[in-house]
């Protein structure tokens, strides 16, 4: 299993769009993964067409979770809320381009979980738990 491709390490070490939360923000959500101690705060602003203009996120965690947030933040830009809502687990894994064990999948999916919850404006998004049944 080759998880640590060069671009993963690069995104992990040099996260894009990393910074203080935007205020005001159209998307603003944070969550954590207590098992890992990872946490993530994601904010974004939309333009007049309803497309993501700016992304800023902050967080702490392993390379996989940081790289995932960094890569996801990049592709968010230019997308509509609906497009973000339709962004799937598979899309994210394609983006990362690596195979993940079940344990590490949770690391990668924290960013998606935060994005979805932010896009839907939900408090407790449990979508990825449902997948497991």
């Amino acid at each position, binding site marked *: 299993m080759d998880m640590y491709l060069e671009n993963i390490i690069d995104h992990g070490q040099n996260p894009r769009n990393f910074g203080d939360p935007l205020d005001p923000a159209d998307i603003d959500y944070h969550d954590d993964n*207590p098992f890992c101690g990872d946490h993530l705060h994601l904010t974004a602003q939309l333009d007049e067409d309803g497309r993501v203009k700016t992304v800023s996120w902050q967080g702490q965690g392993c390379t996989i979770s940081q790289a995932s947030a960094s890569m996801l933040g990049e592709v968010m830009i230019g997308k509509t809320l609906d497009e973000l809502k339709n962004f799937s687990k598979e899309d994210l894994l394609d983006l990362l381009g690596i195979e993940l064990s079940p344990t590490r999948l949770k690391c990668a999916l924290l960013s998606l979980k935060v994005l979805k919850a932010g896009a839907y404006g939900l408090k407790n998004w449990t979508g990825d738990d449902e997948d497991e049944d």
Partner: protein
Amino acid sequence: MTKTDQLTSPLDIQAIRADFPVLNQEAHPGKPLVFLDSAASSQKPRQVVDAMSTYLLHDHANVHRGIYALSERATDAYEAAREKVRVFINARSRREIIYTRNTTESVNLVAGSWGRANLGPGDVVVLSEMEHHSNIVPWQLLAEERGFTIRYIPVTDEGLLDLAAYETFLQQEPVKLVSVMHVSNVLGTVNPVAGMIRQAHAAGALFMIDGAQSVPHLAVDVQALDVDFLAFSGHKMAGPTGIGVLYGKRVLLEAMPPYMGGGDMIRRVTLEKSEWNDLPYKFEAGTPAIAEAIGLGAAVDYLGTLGMDNILAHEQIVVEYAMERLSEIPGLKVLGPGPDRRNGVTAFVMQDLHAHDTAQLLDMEGVAVRAGHHCAMPLHQRYCLPATTRASYYVYNTTADVDALVEAIYNARKLFGI
């Protein structure tokens, strides 16, 4: 095996017996073992023991969140076994399958978690007079703490539940839960749980099945039954000791507080308080019985390959034959209803021969049966019997075993001059 078995049993019992090395021994010199105590605990096929040994010798690591290949392998095997159990009882989700030690712990879990949170003065829990201690004592202990009332469905002389009394309870009492055994470990009675569940639900009560004696012997479909909780033990269904299952409907389990606290059942712990993990882990505190879960998965595979309907059909032949042969014996009375309403066990009493003497004398002939109250003292009190002798049957038993039982009983009688 007699001619009858070969003609009618849907299974090749001799091939099955070859999977159970324990059956191939002498109980005493010159006395081949005739094992008729599977209701207490069944024997285990090679396939189950091999699955456990292979796991313990080659694949073991603690499960969950291990970031290395061995631990991932162990976790996969542990969770694959859960999925097998889910399919076996047709639960909707693997999250509804909670590993426990045995039926007893499963009942205690429901009492200690659901019961402690939901039962209080004025509430009623309905059990039955034929229950095993493991479905009585947890409720008595909790009733003392929480002050609710327990009602027992009476048992008729024939060994059936008094369903009229059951209906009266449901209509006249604030019943919150009914907990009843599916198959009696003494009478053999197969209780009509499907209808009883519908009645309980109509009265607003939950229904729990003690499936210790049914899940090993007949197909139990929790969705078809719409049962709320189901408890059973691995060791009675060709599986290992140390593992049991509590099935519960997800919506109920989600709402229940934890039973035990510890590792794996939490999401977050601080010095002040804790948050609980998702199902099923909320109820699986500490390092689980990993090898045992894997062994249970292998047992479920084994039974599934034979086919639960075939197992039931075969056992019916053996039990019917046993009832016929036993009732020929003068002064011997088999407890419970006729063969069409029973499964798996024949408990009996004999004039002038105490149950313990009977069991001891049968053992001298190599025939292993159990004597006593079979953890159903209230039922024995109901029939004013201090003890009964019980022969019980599983898929590896044949009518030849019944013949050996009957012959040994005649020998015992001869020794006592009766």
